[in-house]
């Protein structure tokens, strides 16, 4: 079943075409890579899928519904979760509070609870949320320091926390923006393991944006390669990496700049 369908997506910034007529489908349960060199339009594409950027043209379908005009929070409600490229976290909060905030959609705290935060009913609801949050922290191996301020976490753990926040929305589709960037070998392998575990245990679908070819090969079932906002190849990682055009776009032309 097609979980996500991108049809004729376009984005213009002034005169610049950041994404041109992009088509691709993602099946349920797939890990799909969106790869390309810096500036190829990967993050722009991701921003249009999660709704933080509006499209100049095209349509996006999620679970068969047209979500093209919906705002990001509505898309989150439908089951799309975004994990940001840089360490975007709630800096004023502890690790636990970050995940609690992520549980917004799963909480049934209403205006009544806002006016009676100390009432037993509200307390109970919050306790339940806390338990849920701790489970998620367990999954990303952060349950040992729920009270730590999120900003004080090491880089790799901040990424894990970002993932836990996304998991808290209980999504069907994850959008991961360069999840491995800036990580050391140990953190990279843990993150890859976590992503695989997420898909295998929970049956979710994952779209990964990555410029690091090596990581993509190990992670994705299928991938599309972007160059200057145009899709130049799509297929299994081995198909994609063997493609002439991908090699040229990705690695630069083989001609020696010095001798030419």
């Amino acid at each position, binding site marked *: 079943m097609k979980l996500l369908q991108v049809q004729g997506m376009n984005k213009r910034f002034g005169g610049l075409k950041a994404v041109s007529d992009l088509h691709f489908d993602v099946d349920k349960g797939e890990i799909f890579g969106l790869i390309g060199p810096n500036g190829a339009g990967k993050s722009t594409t991701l921003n249009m899928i999660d709704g933080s950027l509006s499209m100049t043209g095209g349509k996006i379908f999620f679970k068969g519904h047209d979500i093209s005009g919906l705002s990001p929070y509505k898309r989150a409600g439908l089951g799309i979760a975004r994990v940001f490229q840089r360490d975007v976290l709630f800096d004023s*909060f502890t690790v636990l509070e970050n995940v609690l905030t992520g549980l917004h959609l799963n909480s049934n705290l209403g205006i009544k609870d806002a006016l009676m935060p100390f009432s037993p009913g509200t307390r109970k609801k919050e306790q339940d949320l806390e338990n849920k949050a701790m489970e998620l922290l367990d999954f990303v191996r952060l349950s040992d320091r729920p009270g730590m301020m999120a900003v004080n976490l090491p880089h790799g753990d901040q990424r894990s926390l970002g993932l836990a926040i996304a998991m808290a929305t209980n999504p069907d589709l994850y959008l991961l923006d360069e999840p491995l960037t800036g990580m050391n070998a140990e953190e990279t392998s843990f993150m890859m393991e976590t992503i695989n575990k997420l898909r295998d245990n929970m049956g979710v679908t994952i779209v990964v944006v990555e410029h690091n070819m090596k990581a993509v090969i190990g992670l994705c079932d299928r991938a599309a390669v972007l160059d200057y906002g145009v899709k130049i190849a799509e297929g299994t990682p081995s198909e994609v990496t063997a493609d002439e055009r991908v090699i040229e776009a990705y690695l630069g032309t083989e001609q020696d700049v010095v001798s030419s």
Partner: protein
Amino acid sequence: MDSKRLLSIFGVLLLIVFSFAIAPFLGNPYWSSVLIMIVINILLTSSLRTIFILDEVSLGQVGFTLIGAYVSALVVMELGLSFWAGLILGGVASAFIAMAVGYPFMKLKGIYFSILTLMTTEILRLIAYSWKPVTGGQYGLTGIPSPNPLTLPGIGEINFSSMNNYYYLALTIVLVCLFIMYIIEKSHLSRKWIAIKDADNLALSVGINVMKYKVLNFTIACFFAGLAGGLFAHYQGLLSAGATGRFGVMTTLNLVIYMVIGGKSKFSGPIIGTIAIMLLMEFARPLDNLRPMLVGAVAIIFVLLLPEGIAGLPVRLKSIGKKYVSGVLR
């Protein structure tokens, strides 16, 4: 419940008792009127800080006070409703207008939001200043009645035309408002505001309707600003909207000073700051025209040396004390 929490609850109760007990000892209407203005301004400054939870500085709180003041006065004078209805309707009118303009307003951030709110408050003032048939124009409204006497079982009839009694009334209302604001501060609502302030894109991506919560924030803050206006109208008995008067630009700017000196990141900050600066203004009467200079100097000293304000002093002193102790021991 830990002892620290118990202690602070006890402290707050003590302060409340003190603020009730103080009025008769001061004894004269002048001090009662000072105290009334202090509690009204506490409410206003606290409403400013509600918006500051989103990291936005509203320079327009006084504009919404004006709405509350005029609406509250007019429904009592023209429609013959009670003080209580007037007070609530004033707050509601202010909140309603805030909600109506909230969506486009809350899209702006930083300097843009501050300038927008500053201009809005001037527009509201000028409308009040010129809309003669309704607001009395530059002559303003006069003869706004005091609240009707209240009969309480066991105490008897309380007449609010006395300054002292009006102070009790205002204090009670403001305390209730502060209690509600405190509760909101501790609730999931304020956690969402902080989340939006920290990273609105992440907040959106976990499904938080960012604009809804921002507009709600603005609406709540302006509701309390409107209530403050109603309290002011029925205390003063007359309203006018001249440029240098109560609803002028300087009033709105002073609130920022109260908040910063008191401590912008603590709930108690605006309360402490308003009391401290307004009392300072009273005790510095001999300085006469130079009093604002004193306040300005104090504000600059706080910004540069104690950015967390008076409410941040205990922590600051503790760290200084620790340094000193460790210095002595070493």
